[in-house]
């Protein structure tokens, strides 16, 4: 218990003293996670909508792969991205391994299926009569989509929250493809692992508080957006 208390004090001290490194790690974490989730959202929601609304041959297979992807262990994603980005690998010439871009790629791979899967599930649940009613009201294709997105906003924000949770929590792939390089690819989770292995539990605990605070703030924002009061 004493350790947690010490860690808490350390966290406050590090934050208050404006420890530049901690600040940088936190910003990198934010930048990496938010970029990844932004890309996943921009790609994932339209794909989820397409899969959810339309029936086409191969839909079932695609959904199976999406569902497998939702449970894909991040280190598996990390391994394949590492091999892809190796100097000797197919994308080696891009020099992306051990950069934040590589971490973002890995995080997109693990969060995209979640967003596609949960979005398509939400759209599959829309009453076909509702679809017809919206069409009948004279909505253009785009307007139809906007209305449907509004109707499914609870589920879609839940999808984004779930994706973000996974991305913030992820460590294995970030370690593998990012390399935990100081001042560069070090993010909160990888530096926690490192601090633990160095025996600096107080620093690790401090980092965990920062990570939890971030997760809390972001989830809080999204949840309050999701649960905005209904005017009854």
């Amino acid at each position, binding site marked *: 218990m004493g350790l947690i208390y010490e860690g808490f004090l350390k966290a406050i001290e590090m934050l208050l003293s404006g420890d530049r490194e901690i600040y940088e790690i936190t*910003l*990198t974490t*934010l*930048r990496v996670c*938010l*970029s990844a989730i*932004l890309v996943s959202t921009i790609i994932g929601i339209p794909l989820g909508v397409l899969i959810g609304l339309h029936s086409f041959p191969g839909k079932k297979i695609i959904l199976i792969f999406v569902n497998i992807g939702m449970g894909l262990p991040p280190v598996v994603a990390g391994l394949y991205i590492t091999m892809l980005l*190796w*100097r*000797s690998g197919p994308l*080696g*010439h891009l*020099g992306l*391994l*051990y950069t934040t871009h590589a971490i973002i790629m890995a995080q997109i791979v693990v969060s995209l299926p979640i967003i596609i899967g949960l979005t398509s599930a939400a759209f599959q649940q829309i009453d076909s009569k509702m679809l017809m009613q919206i069409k009948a009201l004279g909505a253009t294709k785009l307007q139809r989509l906007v209305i449907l997105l*509004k109707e499914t*906003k609870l589920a879609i924000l839940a999808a984004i929250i779930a994706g973000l949770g996974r991305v913030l929590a992820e460590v294995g792939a970030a370690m593998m493809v990012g*390399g*935990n*390089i*100081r001042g*560069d*690819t070090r993010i909160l989770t990888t530096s926690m692992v*490192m601090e*633990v*292995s*160095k*025996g*600096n*539990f107080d620093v690790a605990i401090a980092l965990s508080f920062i990570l939890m605070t971030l997760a809390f703030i972001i989830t809080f*924002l*999204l949840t309050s*957006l999701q649960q*905005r009061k209904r005017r009854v």
Partner: protein
Amino acid sequence: MKINRKIFALMTLFILIMTACSNENESVEGPTNEPQDMILATTTSTQDSGLLDVLIPIFEEKYNINVKTIAVGTGQALAMGERGEADALLTHAPTAEEKLVASEDVINRKRVMYNDFIIVGPERDPAEIQGMDVAAAFQQIFETGAIFVSRGDDSGTHKMEWSLWEKASLDPSGEEWYLETGQGMGSTLQLSGEREGYVLTDRATYLSHAGNMEHMEILVEGDDELLNIYHVMQVNDRKYERINREAANLFVEFMVEEAQEIIKEFGMEEYGQPLFFQYTE
């Protein structure tokens, strides 16, 4: 309408944060003399001890090179060299390194420093190895079947441990009391503390963890067999593509010259003793 605005605000926030961060990076680097990247594959012990955190910035500053330090086990670090995935290596497994020299995967290999391995174990010392030489201590642990915790990760420390078992003609693999963690030195030390097992570790890592495991102590030390010798080398750019030869070469020279002054002093302040000793050729 109301949520639209909220979503918009949130998106703007996302984008602001991201552009803020990326701008910062760009302004630091500057477009004109962009530093070149160099990948250094090294062992967790050099990173965990904090030595590289001191050395690397000096090197980066001096040569305008951006070093990407990938801290992994020596086995993996050497494998990265063998695949041409790194530019320079800093490792401590002489026998394995010599193989890479022979196969011309690495060149310009130079001795840098050493620290020493020690055997740490529980205070009550169930196998009664305190003060013995290494061979006798390993024999004793083997015979009493006291818990021994191994890295089991093909790291330099693991390789060292194996060569010690081999010299004593013992094979502990598969024994019930022989635990392999497959993790870094820090985690392995902590596990040995929890299980009250013996463990072979480098002194630097132990010193940084000693505060968290007061019931453990150094039982065997000072044997010549226990020297942990570090070499720096560069990956052969004739054999692999995209190797930054120039930077790697500068790094090797830096480690055997300028870095030596810092290595000598490193750790004195915090632990009252140096963690590494100069040992150039």
